[in-house]
């Protein structure tokens, strides 16, 4: 690449140009100055006045012809610009850029100083600096979610400010959402009609996609890059076979099934390095060390640790690996142990011994507190509010305030649906969306959907049902039992709750008032299993028993024993978030789980208040913990290998020369107007 590249094409043309222009200017200069004659009494004083200006110095002469020299300088600059001097530099590819910055947990790795994210931001900043005027850029940071930090703009200041706003997170990474955000403009959707055929809804704007990441995410299938030109800039140490990192990849607690007072804590550690390491593992309860173990992790291998805790009801457990490695965030695992919350179930039935017995078992009692009421608590149709009995009023209140997690209506149905999950046995809910068929006998069970949690382990072989009716559940429902007459058991969502409706009764009462058994299901083993499923699934008992742990960024659903309106969440660092309000089903959803650690839930703000429960946010992501740099990443069908992202480019100087020429022109204009002789 030569320093000069003649813009005029041929050199002789430039030579002629270069020879003629200054000559012409010189000629013009001497020809143009036509002074106006003016008769004066005497030039005596004037000659003496300008005598000083004519003293024999070059500069004095220069001053007289300042304009000429400025003009010559201007034309020299222009001619030099026409020569197009330049040097070899580097430039970005394209004119529309999307900078995708990975801000996931693995980007906090310190294998490059100070860390990968800072390195990525630095490289992206260099690229933004190298943007030409007219180029537009967009900044997207992504973790498991994508965030458009700055939409397309040509302002480098805005882009750099957007870069500065990107913060390290503890989240996992998922490129797909970021890719979708990036491809919105590059690959506009298409629409079609019969006459015009397939047309694009907007003009496609191809863009270069700069990916600043360590590749610590799953491949993105089913994504077509289209007009996006991906350039993967690997952040981290290239060609590293292993990484110096030890991570807690799992940590959990469970009650010892044999000894109830005992809680066991299990941790699984993984060594991503190429050497065996001996690490000390500490278990902390609410911040203080209660146990420690030393374990050896083989190179590229795993090891488990187990701790026994006795007389332990609730609290926050933290498992810490004492190891100095590149990524600190995965050296701790957290587990929240909450006192088990029992589901509250209301059973409204004239009498159902089988159901009462199944709900009365020890296991079921552990999971739920069951209240049984007769159908007389349900207000009858057309009843005046004043005529309601105390029990009816209580029921109404409980149903409206979501006091119960589950209400089972056996051989009866309410006038209004309660604010709870419901199970209707032999009745259809008072909703138009549910349609009940005629009572037919005997329905033959054809199929049972055993993949649904309600029907897990429930076998309907050889179950006889004397009479039943078919159901037409609303849209979005799942049919759990299919019979020859139609759907016999279905479940459908309703504003955050779920209604399960059984098209047959277990016990029925005939016209004479005698209790009849409608099915022999209650004699089977599958019946108590079904009841347990009902308690766990519809009663929410399962979620209450589990100690909640989510990955950073995932929402947490919190249930409380007591009906409260607001909950205050304290982050691991001690900061209190704004209170979250109750949603349907007496649940609270908390989304600001950006940092790993133990979060405390309180009814009132303040550290001294009683902690209702805790939940843990853990990284637990082998992809994030494995710090090895991916040489290539797969985006849909395309495999992108790491590269610098710069294209060799000729850096031109002519713009600056023309700018200087403009400056000279302005100065000349000023001199001409002011006649300033320096």
């Amino acid at each position: 690449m030569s320093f000069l590249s003649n813009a005029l094409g041929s050199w002789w043309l430039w030579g002629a140009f270069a020879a003629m222009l200054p000559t012409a200017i010189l000629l013009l200069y001497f020809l143009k100055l036509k002074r106006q004659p003016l008769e004066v009494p005497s030039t005596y004083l004037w000659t003496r006045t300008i005598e000083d200006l004519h003293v024999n110095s070059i500069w004095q002469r220069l001053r007289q012809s300042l304009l000429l020299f400025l003009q010559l300088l201007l034309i020299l600059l222009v001619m030099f610009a026409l020569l197009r001097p330049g040097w070899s530099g580097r430039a970005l590819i394209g004119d529309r850029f999307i900078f995708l910055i990975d801000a996931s947990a693995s980007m906090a790795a310190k294998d490059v100083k100070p860390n990968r994210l800072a390195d990525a931001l630095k490289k992206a900043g260099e690229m933004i600096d190298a943007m030409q005027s007219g180029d537009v850029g967009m900044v997207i940071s992504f973790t498991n979610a994508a965030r458009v930090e700055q939409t397309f703009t040509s302002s480098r200041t805005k882009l750099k400010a957007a870069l500065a706003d990107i913060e390290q997170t503890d989240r996992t990474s998922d490129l797909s959402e970021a890719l979708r955000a990036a491809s919105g403009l590059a690959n506009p959707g298409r629409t079609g009609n019969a006459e015009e055929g397939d047309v694009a809804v907007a003009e496609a704007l191809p863009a270069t996609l700069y990916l600043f990441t360590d590749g610590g995410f799953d491949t993105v299938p089913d994504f077509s890059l289209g007009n996006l030109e991906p350039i993967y800039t690997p952040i981290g140490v290239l060609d590293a076979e292993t990484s110096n990192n030890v991570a807690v990849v799992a940590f959990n607690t469970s009650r010892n099934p044999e000894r109830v007072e005992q809680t066991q804590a299990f941790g699984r550690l993984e060594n991503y390095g190429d050497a065996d390491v001996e690490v000390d593992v500490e278990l902390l309860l609410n911040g203080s060390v209660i146990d420690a173990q030393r374990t050896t992790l083989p190179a590229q291998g795993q090891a488990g640790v187990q701790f026994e805790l006795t007389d332990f009801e609730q609290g926050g457990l933290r498992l810490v690996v004492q190891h100095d490695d590149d990524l600190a965030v995965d050296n701790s695992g957290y587990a929240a142990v909450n006192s088990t919350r029992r589901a509250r179930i209301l059973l409204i039935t004239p009498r159902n011994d089988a159901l009462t017995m199944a709900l009365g078992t020890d296991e079921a009692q552990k999971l739920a507190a069951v209240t049984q009421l007769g159908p007389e608590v349900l207000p009858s149709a057309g009843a005046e509010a004043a005529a309601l009995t105390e029990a009816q009023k209580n029921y109404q209140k409980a149903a409206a305030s979501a006091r119960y997690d589950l209400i089972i209506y056996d051989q009866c149905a309410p006038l209004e649906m309660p604010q709870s999950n419901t199970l209707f046995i032999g009745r259809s809910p008072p909703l138009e969306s549910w349609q009940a068929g005629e009572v037919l006998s005997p329905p033959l069970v054809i199929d049972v959907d055993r993949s649904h949690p309600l029907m897990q382990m429930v076998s309907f072989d050889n179950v006889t049902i004397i009479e039943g009716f078919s159901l037409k559940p609303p849209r979005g429902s799942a049919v759990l039992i299919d019979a020859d007459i139609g759907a016999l058991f279905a479940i459908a969502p309703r504003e955050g709750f779920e209604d399960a409706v059984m098209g047959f009764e277990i016990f029925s009462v005939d016209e004479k008032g005698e209790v009849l058994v409608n099915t022999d299901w209650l004699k089977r083993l599958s019946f108590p299993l079904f009841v347990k499923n009902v308690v766990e699934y519809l009663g929410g008992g399962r979620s209450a028993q589990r100690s909640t742990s989510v990955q950073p960024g995932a929402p947490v659903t919190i249930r409380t024993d007591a009906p409260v309106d607001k909950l205050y969440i304290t982050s691991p660092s001690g900061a209190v978030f704004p209170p979250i309000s109750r949603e349907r089903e007496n649940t609270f959803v908390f989304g600001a789980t950006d940092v790993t650690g133990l979060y405390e839930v309180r009814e009132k703000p303040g550290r001294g208040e009683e902690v209702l429960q805790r939940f843990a946010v853990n990284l637990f992501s082998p992809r994030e913990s494995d710090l090895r740099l991916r040489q290539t990443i797969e985006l849909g069908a395309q495999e992108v290998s790491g590269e610098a992202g710069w294209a060799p480019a000729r850096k031109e100087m002519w713009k600056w020369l023309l700018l200087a020429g403009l400056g000279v022109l302005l100065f000349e204009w000023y001199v001409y107007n002011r006649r300033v002789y320096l």
Partner: protein
Amino acid sequence: MSTSQTTPLLEPALLAQLERLELVSRKIFRGRMKGERRSKRKGQSVEFSDFRSYTPGDDLRFIDWNLYARLDKLFLKLFLEEEDLHFYVLLDASASMDFGDPTKLQYAKQLAAALGFIGLCRADRVRIEQIGPPKQTPGPVLRGRRSMWRMLDYLEQIEPGDNTPLVDGVKNFCLRNSGKGVVVLISDLMEKAGYESALRMLLAQQMDIYVIHLLSPEEIEPDIKGDLKLVDCEDADIAEITVSRPLLNRYKSTLAAFIEHAREFCTRRGMMYLMARTDVPVDRLVMNYLRQRGLVR
């Protein structure tokens, strides 16, 4: 220029004022005729000057007989003689004087007429001369109020355009007028060769010299702009200038230096220098500035 030609050289009101004035010589000069002023020469007048011893041949009329009676010695009384004053006005009528409104020449004529009138009123010997070549007929010698019209006639006929160098004109004047007296040189001193030698020549005549330096406002604050080719009206010399504020400032400082040099040159040599602008009325110049300078009282 044309307007100034029609105005009379001397306004009647000014004449009345001028009648009360008289020309003053800082030196006492010998005149040719008896005049109204004392001379250094001892002579016949009423003003006593000194005594001296009698020597044979002295006029017996001046012996102080009273003294002889007292001292028995002969002393002669000496009296100051009263003489007339030779007053000259040297008028520069070069082309450069034909500028301004009124023109510098017209102004100079008015000034010369005023001064000459004062001299005529006091029976001084007044002569107004134009600086010119030797062959030129000199101005008439005037005496007495009646000569005023001759003086004015002579002044009226002076035309600008006689570009005799100042030094030649002064030399010519000096050759023709050897006597002592008061000479007033009215000129713009714009001489490329320099005015100094001319003034030195006047000085050598032991005359009482007044230099009235006439400048028009156009010369003091030139109102010009643009790229100009200045043409000297006397010798067609050309100066190319591009008018700018710095240049004008520079011109003004040059002019100031020029005036200052002339003043200093005159003051050092006992000449009285007065810079006069043509926009100052003649009567004010005569009644105020020239009185202050001591030319008239």
